[in-house]
């Protein structure tokens, strides 16, 4: 039976899945943050740029689709968060605008600012883009200072329904240490995935060996920050919603309870974490093992997806308001209408078709590993 509640859950799943895919595809950003450190020669750097440059559009498109899908399914989030946490989202946007031109422009004559400017843009996108997205997502668990009052619309002089509680407009999220933990976890995860991607894709023994070394430097901080965030969150108070009245209240160990009460999500979460670890540890143990990216990538998708399910399912407010608890957004009070969710659900049936052609296209382009001769022999190379 397709009920309103079912569709709200379905769309929260789609949002969570897109977030998971985005987290995986941030390996492009992770790689960009290592452009200057992982490579020692111009040839090596160029190889890294061109290897990432064939994938950046997937990450970018996933980010845009994540935004669009959030707008269509939970418009109150779009309205409240983007219009309120203005500076965080603007900072993220700037990080991505400068990325979009940097591949195409960097090695073309006449690019005005020189190759290093564009590569620095890629570096900034890799460094701040990943970290800030992590911080923004962490507020799904730690809360933000906003108010929603829909009856404002009848106030002719001040009709805006949502308002931010402080003048920092989102930047105050940086004052919360737990938000930092997820920001840093996402940053180091993106870098870990990037080195696994390089190990898989590059036909370049020096860069491959260096990537293996870099895996240490990045996977260990990732595990530390991620576990700190997860354990901290599981044992913190969470934002519970009374399904009958819609009243939001603080509940001890809410997220831990959610995992226990949703065993499927718990299993997925654990499987995801294990897959990430298999990808990383397998690559450490065996020099011949080059498929780490697929394990760690799939693991990332599943882990991040289940983490967001924990934030939104089981009567939990996914975008909590503190201190104005009752303004918190839940998948029930912020979603689109039944009609729109139904229409969008039909559209979502196209997603497997999209995934299928991405798979076919990806495979047709990745028959062999990329080396510097490929880059030099390609007239569209960056």
């Amino acid at each position, binding site marked *: 039976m397709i009920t309103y509640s079912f569709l709200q859950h379905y769309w929260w799943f789609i949002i969570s899945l897109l977030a998971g895919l985005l987290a995986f595809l941030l390996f492009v950003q992770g790689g960009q943050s290592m452009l200057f450190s992982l490579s020692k020669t111009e040839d090596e750097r160029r190889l890294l740029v061109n290897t990432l440059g064939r*994938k950046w559009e997937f990450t970018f498109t996933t980010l845009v689709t994540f935004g669009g899908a959030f707008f269509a399914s939970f418009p109150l989030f779009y*309205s409240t968060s983007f*219009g309120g946490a203005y500076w965080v989202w603007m900072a993220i946007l700037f990080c991505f605008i*400068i990325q*979009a031109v940097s591949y195409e422009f960097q090695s073309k*004559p006449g690019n005005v600012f020189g190759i290093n400017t564009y590569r620095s843009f890629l570096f900034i996108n890799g460094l701040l883009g990943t970290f800030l997205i992590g911080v923004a997502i962490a507020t799904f668990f730690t809360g933000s200072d906003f108010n929603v009052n829909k009856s404002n*619309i009848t106030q002719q002089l001040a009709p805006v329904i949502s308002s931010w509680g402080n003048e920092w407009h989102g930047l105050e999220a940086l004052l919360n240490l737990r938000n930092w933990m997820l920001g840093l976890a996402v940053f180091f995860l993106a870098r870990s995935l990037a080195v696994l991607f390089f190990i898989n894709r590059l036909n370049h023994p020096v860069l491959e060996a260096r990537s293996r070394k870099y895996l240490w430097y990045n996977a260990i901080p990732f595990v530390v920050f991620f576990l700190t965030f997860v354990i901290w969150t599981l044992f913190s108070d969470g934002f519970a919603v009374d399904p009958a009245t819609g009243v939001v209240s603080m509940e001890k160990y809410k997220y831990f309870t959610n995992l226990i009460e949703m065993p499927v999500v718990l299993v997925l979460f654990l499987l995801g974490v294990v897959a990430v670890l298999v990808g990383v540890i397998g690559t450490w143990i065996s020099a011949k093992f080059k498929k780490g990216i697929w394990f760690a990538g799939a693991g990332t998708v599943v882990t991040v997806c289940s983490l967001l399910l924990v934030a939104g399912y089981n009567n939990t407010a996914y975008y909590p308001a503190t201190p104005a608890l009752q303004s918190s957004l839940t998948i029930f009070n912020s979603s689109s209408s039944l009609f729109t969710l139904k*229409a969008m659900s039909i559209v979502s049936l196209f997603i497997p078709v999209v995934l299928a052609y991405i798979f076919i*296209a990806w495979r047709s382009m990745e028959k062999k590993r990329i080396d510097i001769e490929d880059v030099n022999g390609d007239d569209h190379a960056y």
Partner: protein
Amino acid sequence: MNLLDASLVDWSRAQFAMTAMYHWLFVPLTLGLGVIMSIMETLYVKTGDEQWKKATKFWMTLFGVNFAIGVATGIILEFEFGTNWSNYSWFVGDIFGAPLAIEGIMAFFMEATFISIMFFGWKKVSKKFHLASTWLTVLGATLSALWILVANAWMQYPVGMEFNPDTVRNEMIDFWSILFSPVAMNKFFHTVLSGWVMGGLFVIGISSWFLIKKREVDFALKSIRVGAIFGIVSSLLIAYTGDGSAYNVAQHQPMKLAAMEGLYQGKAGTGLVAVGILNPDKKSYKDSINPYLFKVQIPYMLSILAYRDANAFVPGVKDIIDGGYQTPKGTALSFEERHKRGKAAIQSLSDYQKAITAKDSTAAKLHKAALKENYAHFGYGYIDKAEGLIPNVPTVFYSFHIMVALGFYFIALFALVLFFSYNNKIEKKKWLLWVSLWSIPLGYVAGELGWAVAEVGRQPWAIQDVLPVQAAISNISSASVMITFVLFAVLFTALLIAEIRIMLKQIQKGPEAH
């Protein structure tokens, strides 16, 4: 904070307008050049002629440079609905969000996936697979235009929705009427065709430069012919869809039509201003000053264009504010009356909310019925003065007239280029080659002016009759928006300069480099 702070509304509008205008410097070429290079690659696959491959790759490089910056400006537009128009995002997000999500799922992924094969797959996939990828990249771009234009058309002509007082927003009740609204369909074809005209102008202009320089003559002759055929077909079709646009505006946005024509006092059998200069002394819609210093009219033409009837009454600005004239839906209401009803609708919503809180279902029912009765005027409740209903007339008037004039000029230009190209005399017509080259910027001008007519002309409405811009904004300080405006302006300008220089260098290198 007083949210009707004019400076916040103005800065929010300015930021969105600037982003949109920069975005529109890149999108038309993506749409038009994309089709042209796909046609050339098709010719290559069909004939096996390497010249066509070389031509395809040359235009494709320019496509790539242009595409990247279009992507950069596009993402901001999507997010600015949330960051700067947060009330809007809730009030109509139930309808407006869907096309944006569909655009992502159905169009952007297609573009992103196949563009990679198009650029890097020449040696990796078969000729036919590559050709399909090129076409699919362009199809993806065109589909994305479809969905975003459906969304824009809905703001100009909101259909398929109903206001829900419980959620305090408009909700979708008919997806197909939104997708296939006549405004949406016309807007899609008109806008995409403007991109095609731009593509045609770009190709004949750059090819002319090669002919002037006597470089790559074979390539340039081939390209100029494709560009001219494509251009003439597009520019004729765009005239047809332009007529459809004006007709739609007349039906659903009479104030915009009045502004486009500088028409203050309507009459039956109105002529169309072919050429005109507005009188800057005209300060108010109420004064009796002649709005034109000079005008040349085509008799009865505006009535014909707007209502398909030479004697139809076309209302002017003053008529729309004063009301009282006949429309197909009955006698037009005055601004004063609509304002009163809009206020009543807003009050009914407030009373309904209070009744619900007080659990008074009888009162709630009454207020809900009263709200429904007046909802068509809801947005007028936020506008205090009749002047608030009038867009900037000179901007809309001149934008419209220059755009139309350029449209006719493009038809003539493509016709001439095509004529001499088929007579094999184009190389000798130096003047025409120069004119073609310098007509490239005019394509951009026409496109930007078209958007100015559409968007400035619908002010003060974010959504026609439902939500004015001042009730659509976010609760942020105007200083914040000012800062991001400046940052965007600096960044976009820097990137635009880089883009133009890269394009010029790539053009100078010529197709041999490919």
